[in-house]
């Protein structure tokens, strides 16, 4: 609807011909919804009563045709409007019923036929979700359904399919690099690939997890599926000894190519929280990975700092890079090699210069400088404390909404000095 004048668009609806057509469509949609609701109610009742039917075989074949029909109706409805979650839920119910039927009453079927059947379902669902996503690339239900079907069916030729999925997300992200649904799905696919690498399906990668056992499914896990993410709390800690088995099973090449992918997306448009977020998750595996050559690691750290500086200097008011900066400093956790330390000190100077350049603003610059100073704190001494306090006072005037927070921070510094 971009670039179209609202008045013009509204005037179109006034046109009796168009209005009638729209109304007709709404009418059709309601009929379809009614029919589908009816079918869903019926099947819910049927599951309780129909189980002990006499003509078992005959009724199941009839039931299957009904189910197929329902699937088709749902397909059409979802292609018109992929947003209603109840339609997707209905679809999943139908699919599960069909699959459980197959499992129960076809013991004679060879596994190959069985797999073929599942592949066919997978293919249909992938086709449907893809078409639906092309209609609305930000539909929650569709993305979830796609994850669900992959996890439920666990295809046999996993690798090829997952590669296709990865390519699909690349395509979608080339059209809209800020579609967080798609980023999320991509991380799911990568986690599946990584899990698959281990010969398993469900294992989410936890860098510092102490065992390879499947972690308990948390609510996030259920909603988002497995994700590439470092385990919480420990952060970058070289003292933690990783179990040999896990470090080697993390597919480094894949993670590296993902890291590179985020770099490219950031190059296209650096105001992209999703890309930076993913990048920060991957940092632990790629830049801060323990296997790495020490020099290499230092180099890539410096590169990250350069990336942040470029973004900040281009647009200091864009929060994205500042958040990434904060995350990176957090992950460093006070452990600075001399050259990294020098870089951080240089950054302090750059931020000071930037701050001078923006006389009546610079909230994010001040916060960034504050972070850098805190990190460097141990050695620089009193001057730094004074500067930090000045910054906080400045922040209190620029950003009065968070005055209390800044006051607390000042108090903390004072306490520390004492």
């Amino acid at each position, binding site marked *: 609807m971009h670039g179209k004048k609202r008045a013009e668009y509204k005037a179109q609806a006034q046109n009796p011909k168009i209005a009638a057509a729209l109304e007709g469509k709404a009418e059709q949609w309601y009929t379809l919804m009614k029919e589908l609701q009816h079918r869903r109610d019926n099947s819910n009742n049927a599951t309780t009563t129909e189980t002990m039917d006499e003509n078992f075989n005959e009724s199941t074949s009839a039931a299957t045709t009904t189910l197929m029909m329902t699937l088709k109706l749902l397909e059409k409805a979802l*292609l018109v409007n992929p947003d209603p979650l109840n339609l997707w839920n209905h679809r999943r119910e139908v699919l599960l019923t069909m699959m459980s039927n197959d499992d129960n009453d076809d013991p004679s079927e060879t596994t190959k036929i069985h797999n073929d059947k599942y592949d066919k379902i997978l293919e249909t669902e992938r086709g449907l979700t893809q078409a639906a996503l092309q209609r609305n690339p930000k539909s929650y239900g569709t993305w979830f359904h796609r994850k669900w079907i992959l996890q439920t069916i666990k295809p046999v030729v996993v690798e090829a399919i997952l590669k296709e999925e990865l390519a699909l997300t690349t395509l979608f992200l080339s059209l809209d690099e800020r579609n967080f649904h798609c980023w999320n799905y991509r991380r799911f696919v990568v986690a599946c690939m990584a899990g698959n690498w281990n010969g398993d399906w469900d294992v989410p990668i936890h860098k510092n997890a102490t065992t390879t056992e499947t972690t308990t499914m948390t609510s996030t896990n259920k909603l988002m599926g497995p994700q590439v993410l470092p385990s919480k709390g420990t952060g970058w800690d070289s003292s933690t000894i990783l179990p040999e088995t896990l470090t080697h099973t993390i597919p480094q090449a894949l993670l590296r190519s993902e890291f590179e992918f985020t770099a490219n997306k950031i190059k296209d448009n650096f105001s992209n929280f999703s890309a930076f977020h993913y990048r920060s998750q991957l940092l632990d595996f790629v830049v801060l990975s323990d296997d790495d050559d020490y020099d290499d690691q230092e180099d890539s750290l410096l590169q990250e700092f350069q990336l942040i500086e470029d973004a900040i200097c281009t647009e200091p008011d864009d929060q994205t890079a500042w958040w990434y900066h904060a995350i990176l400093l957090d992950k460093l956790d006070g452990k600075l090699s001399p050259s990294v330390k020098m870089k951080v000190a240089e950054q302090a100077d750059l931020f000071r210069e930037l701050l001078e350049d923006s006389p009546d603003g610079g909230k994010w610059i001040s916060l960034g400088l504050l972070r850098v100073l805190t990190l460097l704190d141990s050695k620089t001494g009193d001057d730094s404390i004074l500067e930090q306090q000045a910054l906080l006072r400045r922040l209190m005037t620029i950003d009065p909404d968070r005055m209390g927070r800044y006051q607390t921070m000042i108090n903390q510094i004072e306490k520390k000095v004492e």
Partner: protein
Amino acid sequence: MVDVPNEINGLHCDANTDDKQQPTPNEQSTDDPPRDDEGLLLEYDTVICGTGLVQSILASALARAGKSVLHCDGSDLYGELDAVWSFETIEQLYDQYGQGKGNDEEISNSAVDKDIWSVPLSPKGGLSSLQFHSLHTVRYFGIETGTAVESRYGKGTVRSIERNQTINDDTFTLQLELSDWKLADQKSPVLYISVPSTVMDDSVHLEEHLHAVQNIRSTTTVQAEELMKLHRFFALDATPAFILASGPAVQGMIASNVADYLEFKAVEGLYWLEASQDNDKNFELSRVPCSKNDVFGTKLLAPMDKRRLMKFIQLSMDYATKMAVAEELEVEAMETEVEVLSLNERHLNQGRSLARPQNKAVATNDLQALEQHMEDGNLSFDEFLTQNYKLSPKLRSIVRYALAWETDPTSTSLATGMLILRRHLQALGRYGNTAFLCPMYGSGELSQAFCRSAAVFGATYLLRRAPLAVQYEEKLCDDSSKTVKGVILSGDTGSDEEIIKGKLVKCSNVVVPATALMTGTKSTCRIVRRLSILKGQVIPSENREQRYVVFIPPNTIGNSHAIHGALLDRSVAVSPFGCTLLHLTTTVENKNHDPDNILEHAKNAILTSKRLVNNKGDDVDSLVELYHVTFSHSLAQVSEEPSDLTNGIHICNHSGQTLTADVAFEQARSLFQTICPGMEFLGLSKSFDEAIQQRAREKRYDDDEKMMLESALSMIVDKSANSNKSAATTAAAAKDVAKREVLLDLRVSFCERASLATLDVT
């Protein structure tokens, strides 16, 4: 491609017969106006001399406004200096306008009596100041040790060239390893060729000799010859022009629907040539940072430089947005239409190329300061950049020459600089990475398209009939002593050898190119252009397409003015595969300057420059120039316009060294407004507009929604009908299969739509 002129060629052509698409507003109804034996009207509203771009746009606008227009040109192809040339045309023109030939001052126009009632015009029209400096096709690229060659025994490589040891014998021996053959020992045979020392002075001479004696040539030479044989694939623009993605040209072409005749592609990037920091003799090409991501990604600037540049660009963007809103309000006040794009919508149009983050407000103080300075007029553009934004000299020259397209080292006024910068920024983010669109099949298509549309609206076209003079008459009722009476046209031989005499065509307005006027002082300012055909691609790109603009700031290679370069290739259908056209343009003020030399330097600097983007070497090595032509023409300045001219004579200028054709549109608009005050410029007729809207409505997107719903409902109905007769299951199944196919089709249409959407985005 280059032959479009023939479509409305001929001695004259009332183009209604040519194109039945559109009834003319002044449709020749039952009472046809009287015509002479040639079929011309006895009197025209306007006679337009020359088919340059400005004149062509004007012709189309006037014809649409219902004026009778006669458009004539002494040449036999459209476009004057805005034409697309072929090799043959260039050769003909070189014979005519080559070095030391045909200085227009010497031409006396005997056909016309000189008196106070007539102003003579140069029969060459817009081409009268054209001069060719050089024309060269490279035939041999030279043979040295290591050169790949082709001989009558197949391909090979020169292994060595050595002087023979014997004292009496002053010859060299060239060893040629024939790689197409293998001997029993798995080595290739070696051919020994004796070469006299007289041809050893340079590699080209050697190749010439070897070609004559042994039919051995270097592979590059053979490939070059193959490429040059594809002469039909070349569209050589006399004046390469881009158009701004959002500007008067786009507006004009959309409003007039002339855009239907044309195709465009977005320019991929702007590049900047500068001397390397470590060595003045080496040059580097790097991307001009003009969008936010360019600035973010560029390695050209230090972090603080990035900050300063962004700050200035964003100020300019704020200014541009403010001015655009003001303009719109003005239009609105005139048209009493209450439709203004919201600021938000405008930002969407500009994409994310420069927009600030949502939480950041416009820097009002800075904007006010800028406007104050513009009002005062006390600062030049350069001074403003230095004083108010502390931009380094390098940043300043990037802003001035690559973003505001200045050419002269003396800076323009702040107001002019900001005006052009504003135009540039407003056009960013519409299509692709840059603000420019490039016409396919050469920029000459633009003038042809407008001539065609003028013809559709009833203008009469006469080629090979040069206007020779403008005649005046006295009008007693008027204060000013003279008004235009008509134009004297030269004669010509018709197609069937019938001789057509020159004659006077009556009219009340005449449009003539400034250069055709033989009176008035000649400008010392000349536009110099060099057109090179290169083998290979200059800027390495993933899609292997070349659509780039190159800026060379003054004093980089001894150039007094900035040089603009355009790199174009097969992707816009101006060259065959494997070739890139390099257009270089500069302005020369001093005649003593050797224009040929400067652009030769510029070409060498570009070809030998280090390109910052993934330099892979292989293409760069094989980059050679196959052909070049250098020519220049004078730039008549607006101030030279004789002010004492009579009513009814209008002067147009060639756009000179401007990158975009938008200047021509503006000139045409102002001319149009003097001839037809108060009328709409390049408007589209009502009926046409309705037809287009109808077409758009028929293509409504949600039709497939309707189809989908209908098929779903039909299934429900089917089901209730079928529930009684179970026998029909097979039929239903068959039906389902059919529907499944429909569904698949729909999916395809979904995919297509998605790709359409992508196109819209890009």
